């Protein structure tokens, strides 16, 4: 411990607190947290140089309290902390928003594994760019936007756009994943509904990307036109137009299932 080499090579010390703030071992990829916590002991001998007249519990208590309360903190507080480099605050934000972001990605990309990739990359992107988040829009809008951009980027790279007039051509297994057909089934009506859902999934997958993103945000995520305009970086009138075209296309396709 007194070896100068244990003097914090700041890289490890920077993470010491991450272990400390965590308060409980939720995960430990490759044992790194444990290793870092050991490195954290570097901190221990330092104060021993002087007397410590102040109650010990002052510094011992935070562990459980912080662990219990991080998820309760208001969004603004978590954002500020994350912007100041607090990884655990960012983690709390990520856990808070991941489900909505994942839903968007699955609906837009049409399958879960691509959506996982999109979510993961988007969250990393959000961490790297969080310093540029100014709070003009809500954090939720900001992260939706990152995911929407990443999804449309992935779609542009991987698939040629499917013509709207050919809804049956897209989707397939992807659409099955999208509508989650693995749930328990009951007979005819259920089969009919399943077929309808599959058709809806296919039709959704066949929409042009920009229409699909707007439609999903409106009809599946329940957002307003203004927020969707912020997320997609376009005007409200355009958003309304895209959603309406998507609705008309889908309504047409779904008529037989009414």
């Amino acid at each position, binding site marked *: 411990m007194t070896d100068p080499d244990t*003097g914090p090579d700041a890289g490890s*010390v920077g993470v010491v607190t991450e272990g400390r703030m965590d308060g409980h071992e939720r995960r430990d990829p490759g044992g790194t947290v444990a290793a870092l916590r050991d490195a954290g002991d570097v901190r221990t001998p*330092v104060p021993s140089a002087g007397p410590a007249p102040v109650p010990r519990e002052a510094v011992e208590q935070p562990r459980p309290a912080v662990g219990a309360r991080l998820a309760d903190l208001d969004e603004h507080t978590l954002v500020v902390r994350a912007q100041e480099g607090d990884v655990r605050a960012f*983690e709390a934000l990520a856990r808070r928003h991941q489900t909505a972001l994942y839903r968007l990605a699955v609906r837009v990309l049409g399958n879960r594994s691509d959506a996982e990739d999109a979510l*993961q990359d988007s969250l990393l992107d959000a*961490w790297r760019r969080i310093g540029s988040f100014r709070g003009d829009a809500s954090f939720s809008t900001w992260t939706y936007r990152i995911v929407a951009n990443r999804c449309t980027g992935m779609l542009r790279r991987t698939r040629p756009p499917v013509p709207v007039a050919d809804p049956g051509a897209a989707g397939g297994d992807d659409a099955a994943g999208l509508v989650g057909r693995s749930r328990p089934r009951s007979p005819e009506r259920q089969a009919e509904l399943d077929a309808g859902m599959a058709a809806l999934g296919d039709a959704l997958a066949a929409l042009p990307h920009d229409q699909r993103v707007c439609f999903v945000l409106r009809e599946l995520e329940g957002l307003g036109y203004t927020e969707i305009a912020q997320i997609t970086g376009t005007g409200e009138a355009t958003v309304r*137009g895209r959603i309406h075209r998507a609705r008309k296309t889908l309504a047409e396709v779904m008529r037989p299932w009414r």
Partner: protein
Amino acid sequence: MAVSPHDGRGRVAQDDAGAHLPAQGDVVEPLACGRDAATVWDHAEAGTLDAHERECPHCGAAVADARGLEAMVSRLAAQPLVPPPTVVDRVVGAVLAELRPRDLLVLDSPYGPAALDATAAAAVLRGVVDAMDGMRARSCRISRPAGDAGRPVPPAEVSMTVTARFGIELASATARVRQMVLAAGEQALGVPVTRVDIEVVDVFDLPQPSSPAGREGR
């Protein structure tokens, strides 16, 4: 823009002060009766159709489409989609792996040069404040000027913003924050702190999970 604001229900395709005019294909065509089709659709979904929209055959067709699609879409929306927990785990793992020290605090070390990452130090101090009843730390910045060679390093200065539970006595609460931060600097970080600026930037009214408001009186 040629989109005429029909008499119907307000939010017709406004042109966003010219910032984002919709492309031709994204313009909502009015129904034959003159109503904005998207607005009628919104009203059908929200259950706020007006008298005209309920009577008009043109609106009626749009409403029927809206209702028919809505039934299926709401089923789709209700399906639970939850990401596997490993996604955030992987993200946090990657973030931790690429962490690089930013600002360093010089530690008083008789054994050789030592420094502490200021981000880590700030997180410790926030944790101390979070553990206090009715107080939460928001921003926390700690800085320590580098001393001249051979001379003692000057003490650190801390600047914090905090939020406090509504009704808490702020003067004594912030005094306690200051005291705890000074103590934690000394004990947990090994960094003497001489100045703690505290700004109460917000109040919160935390509903207690187990008991409603009123328990505060103890």
